[in-house]
């Protein structure tokens, strides 16, 4: 180990640390202890990232709106999440009189646990994956699917019309967008030939010259990435798909009746969902922990992973700062009549890509099909819904 260059040591620093710590224990419990350490690391790192993200989000939104954002607590307001955390912890925990107390209590826990589980299969760096599962992608989606139940539990148990309406919307939306989310990942699986996330990253961690073989740089990959991003935004209830909690109509959606620490848990769950889905997107399309240019591989792999996740988070924030939200029926229509057909088409194109073999022909054909389909479907969508730019007349 001592002979290894510093860059590799840095790259594997967390693994080395884990092995060093586990080394103090008897050999029998070492694997279990290692796993526990990994879980502890995830449980510490991502909530920390969540705290950082909340302040970044508020400051970023502020900058987009020509404001300063939080600037009171600590230098440049960076201790704001601590203040928020203390506030959330010390606030009274209100449970509505008619609420189903047990379910009301369980809902945020189920959400956070389910979301945390998803991190187990994400490779966050070279060799840095908690459980290298053969069916990792399936596991991830299985965990993602279970969050829907907690949303329903929260909405139903609150016995509030806004809550139940928000929960119904959220669940309907999450189910609708889970389908394109899965299908857009399937094209990656088709090319890689594996559901294992580590294998998917390994397949992308190659370079032509200095340029990487990320899937996003292929026509089908770009289209799938686009659809994945749309579906992921909807899946995490972010703008422009944030209508389950659209405060102008539904106050706060399914967690209207939550306060104090349980509210904080929902908040945490939402952000953790953002991290995990961004991590998955980075893994599937952006080469996971691999460096964007070959000579940048000296930078530790986990830095690249987290950089990609944070870049995705920035796009989430950016969209939140720009876009209004859609309406429920439009959202559903968009999922079923635009995103889903397009992902299906993309699957066909992916197969075409796979069987056309190397060469420029497949680039041209795939790009043409996808771009043409996108433009055509967009045109049809706008025509069918009767919307588009208008011109206006004037009276003197």
């Amino acid at each position, binding site marked *: 180990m001592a002979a290894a260059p510093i860059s590799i040591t840095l790259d594997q620093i967390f693994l080395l640390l884990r092995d060093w710590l586990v080394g103090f224990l008897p050999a029998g419990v070492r694997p279990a202890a290692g796993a526990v350490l990994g879980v502890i690391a995830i449980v510490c790192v991502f909530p920390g990232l969540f705290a950082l993200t909340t302040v970044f989000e508020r400051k970023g939104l502020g900058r987009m709106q*020509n*404001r*300063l954002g939080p600037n009171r607590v600590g230098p440049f307001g960076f201790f704001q999440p601590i203040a928020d955390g203390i506030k959330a912890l010390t606030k009274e925990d209100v449970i509505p009189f008619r609420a189903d107390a047990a379910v009301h209590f369980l809902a945020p826990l189920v959400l956070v646990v389910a979301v945390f589980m998803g991190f187990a299969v994400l490779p966050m760096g070279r060799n840095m994956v908690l459980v290298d599962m053969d069916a990792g992608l399936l596991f991830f989606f299985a965990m993602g699917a279970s969050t829907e139940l907690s949303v329903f539990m929260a909405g139903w148990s609150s016995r509030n019309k806004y809550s139940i309406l928000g929960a119904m919307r959220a669940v309907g939306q999450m189910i609708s967008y889970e389908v394109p989310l899965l299908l857009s990942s399937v094209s990656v699986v088709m090319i890689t030939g594996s559901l294992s996330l580590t294998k998917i990253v390994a397949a992308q961690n190659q370079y032509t010259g200095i340029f990487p073989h990320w899937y996003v740089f292929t026509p089908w990959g770009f289209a799938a990435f686009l659809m994945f991003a749309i579906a992921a935004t909807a899946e995490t209830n972010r703008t422009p798909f944030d209508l389950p909690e659209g405060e102008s109509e539904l106050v706060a959606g399914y967690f209207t009746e939550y306060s104090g620490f349980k509210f904080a848990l929902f908040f945490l769950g939402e952000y953790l969902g953002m991290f995990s889905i961004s991590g998955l997107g980075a893994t599937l399309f952006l080469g996971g922990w691999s460096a964007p240019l070959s000579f940048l591989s000296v930078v530790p792999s986990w830095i690249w992973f987290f950089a990609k996740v944070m870049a995705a988070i920035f796009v989430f924030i*950016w969209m939140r*700062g*720009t*876009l209004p939200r859609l309406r429920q029926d439009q959202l559903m229509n968009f999922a079923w009549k635009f995103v889903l057909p397009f992902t299906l088409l993309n699957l066909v194109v992916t197969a075409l890509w796979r069987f056309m073999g190397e060469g420029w022909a497949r680039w041209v054909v795939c790009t043409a099909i996808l771009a043409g389909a996108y433009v055509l479907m*967009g*045109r049809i*969508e706008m025509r069918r819904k009767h919307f588009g730019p208008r011109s206006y007349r004037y009276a003197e």
Partner: protein
Amino acid sequence: MLGEGILKGMLETAKNFAGSFVSEERLTTVEYPEQRIPTIENTRVFPFLVYDGPDWQAGMRCVACQICEKECPPKCIYIEKSKDKKPDFVGKMQIYPARFDIDVSVCMSCQICVEVCPFEAIKMDTQFELATDDRFGDLLLDRHELAKSNEYYHSIHPAEAAEVDARLAHEKAVAEAKARAAAEKAAADAAAKAAAAKPEMPAVGGR
């Protein structure tokens, strides 16, 4: 193409995001208690009473004519006239307010009292940080709390105060000339009183 407008909008916010770091013009907010934008001279918040000279009671311009009390739209001024008299800035004997209360929790900062006052005695303050936890006591200002010196008036509204001072000096000169003339006629008191106490319309717009 679907998504074009969205991208255009995203570009606009990105421009603002980057711009807020570069251009002061964009970032309009300030960090308030430490950083303040300079008050605009014409700003008006709540009224105060002007006095000349060092003693607030002796120099108070108000003669308790009660026009402001009558014209105040929300009726937040309460005046009690004094029984005795004291000399005003011209030297003429005038009654003065024995009580002059303004309930600033009711006041709506409309400046009508200032416009209708013939004696330049009531003016608008620029002090706006009046937050208090005693809603009834601390926001009901009596004449002592309301009394501010002419120097203070000069410090908050310099241009307007200079104009007022010039007008008052002119009035004083006129009054003194008149008084002198009247004294010569040995009917000084009555004539001078009539001249000074006649409430004249203040020139609208000329504060």
